């Protein structure tokens, strides 16, 4: 791809990303409203379709407040730093057989590395605001992302094992004929990946960094106006990027009949975004100790088992491989989640 092609791609991403983000907020508000038997935004434009624009104008014209005693540098930089990685993530999402902005041979690694930078920005925001709520939110965010990065990476390692490449384009190619979701290790991997993705982008039920009921707004408590909007933009872009990655790695990416590749990828991505919104409309938040326990005691063992299970599935002949793989994963999940122990017989750790 020449320089011009790259430029076009970059411009497209920069132009479309805010639109995608704005309409993701619209979609979220509408979907949640419907789940609660409401209409959602209806005032601005038909079906409230212009509501995101009105919100944008509102955000732009609001007063920008920097708290007294704040670390101005960190406070101002944080919203900028958080948006850039969210935009960079789209570079390695293949929209079609040849349509990818940067076909890195370490695409997956790039995605993980760049998405982890967001924690840094969140911590900058928390530290720079000089507010206990912000700092608590930021600390929680750091702990959470470190905890959930581990099982996520382990599951992506399984995908890399099976596809034999870290390039996102090649991972999609490896799913010709069968999506990774259709295999036992792929299914478990997708489930764990999706849970970790929710935690990674601070969505319910893992939205502790911005838990309204305890931390006011979490790391963005002290932000207003356009800086606040940038945090929201980063959140929704990350939601979109992580959903696109899930679609790419497990749901066959751009592959699908009749429609062009980018359309299939969009359909799958929006499907996953919908599931995220759906979960937000349904589940309550985890407590911080439950959150940590879930990551280290349940997701991590399942992910490790998944690495082994994928290997077994690869080596053993077809029916036996799938059977062993499923059994191994199910057993690990049941043991670690302790779902099978009746509540009365379960001994809770008093320290937790």
């Amino acid at each position, binding site marked *: 791809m020449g320089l011009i092609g790259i430029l076009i791609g970059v411009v497209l991403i920069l132009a479309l990303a805010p639109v995608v983000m704005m309409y993701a907020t619209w979609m979220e508000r509408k979907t949640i409203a419907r789940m609660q038997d*409401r209409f959602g935004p209806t005032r601005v434009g038909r079906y409230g379709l212009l509501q995101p624009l009105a919100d944008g104008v509102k955000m732009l014209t609001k007063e920008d407040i920097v708290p007294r005693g704040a670390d101005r540098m960190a406070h101002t930089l944080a919203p900028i730093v958080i948006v850039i990685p969210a935009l960079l993530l789209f570079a390695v999402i293949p929209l079609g057989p040849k349509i990818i902005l940067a076909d890195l041979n370490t695409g997956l690694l790039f995605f993980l590395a760049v998405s982890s930078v967001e924690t840094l920005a969140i911590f900058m925001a928390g530290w720079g605001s000089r507010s206990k709520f912000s700092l608590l939110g930021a600390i929680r965010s750091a702990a959470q992302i470190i905890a959930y990065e581990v099982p996520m990476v382990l599951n992506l390692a399984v995908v890399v094992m099976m596809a034999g490449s870290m390039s996102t384009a090649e991972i999609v190619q490896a799913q010709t004929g069968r999506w990774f979701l259709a295999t036992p290790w792929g299914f478990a991997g997708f489930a764990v990946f999706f849970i970790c993705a929710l935690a990674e982008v601070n969505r319910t039920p893992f939205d502790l960094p911005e838990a309204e009921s305890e931390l006011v707004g979490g790391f963005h408590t002290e932000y207003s106006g356009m800086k606040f909007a940038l945090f929201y933009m980063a959140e929704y872009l990350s939601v979109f990027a992580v959903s696109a990655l899930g679609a790419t790695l497990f749901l066959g990416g751009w592959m699908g009949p009749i429609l062009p590749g980018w359309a299939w990828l969009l359909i799958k991505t929006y499907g996953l975004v919908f599931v995220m919104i759906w979960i937000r409309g*349904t589940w309550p938040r985890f407590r911080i100790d439950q959150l940590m326990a879930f990551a280290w005691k349940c997701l991590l063992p399942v992910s490790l088992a998944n690495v082994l299970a994928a290997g077994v599935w690869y080596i053993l002949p077809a029916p036996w491989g799938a059977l062993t793989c499923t059994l191994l994963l199910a057993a690990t999940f049941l043991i670690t*989640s*302790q779902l099978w122990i009746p509540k009365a017989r379960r001994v809770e750790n008093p320290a*937790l």
Partner: protein
Amino acid sequence: MQLYGVELLRGLGITFSHFVRTYVKGVGRKFAQGNVRQLPTQDGIFTVPYPEEKLAVPERLRVLPFLIYNGNTGQPATEESIRCTACGICAKVCPPQCIWIVQAKDAVAGKPKPKPAEFTIDMDVCMNCGFCSEYCPFDAIKMGHDFELSNSERDKSHIFEMDRLLVPTENYAKTHPGAWAEEEAKRQAAAAKKAATAAAAAAAAKPAPGTPP
């Protein structure tokens, strides 16, 4: 640690069914059908987008008082048709004293007439208690339903003169069917009783001229 796995999935099912039902059940309902209050058992969307769609108000809702005159919709009020007799009971019982009445005078003789020349209610003072309509012996003042009173001008539009207060009985019967029926029944009973006593008096009085003292 407990996961409550099954219940989590059940929760997802519940929210999704609500999501679907708002589209399925809401299709026929562009705006609230028949202006009916929404029941807690209702499926689909509960929300009423207010200015376009309004819920029916209960009949006994009290907002601002209005004056009644006997007549049909569109018929102008005449002095005879106005039920108010300018007795001033409403103005006396009004706790915040928002009613101002000037009694009409005979144009020729200058004698006071049992009709109001001016009847003024200050909307900002009225506290919507409904005492005026409770105390009125002539069913002339009633509590209205129009609650969309706010505007950006307060010197003129908040003072309700007679021209804005008068409502024909036909309209009143439509907006307050229950109260109207009750009052009509009472009025007819009273009229029947009056007629009966008048007839009895007439019957008692009739033989009088015939009989010698």
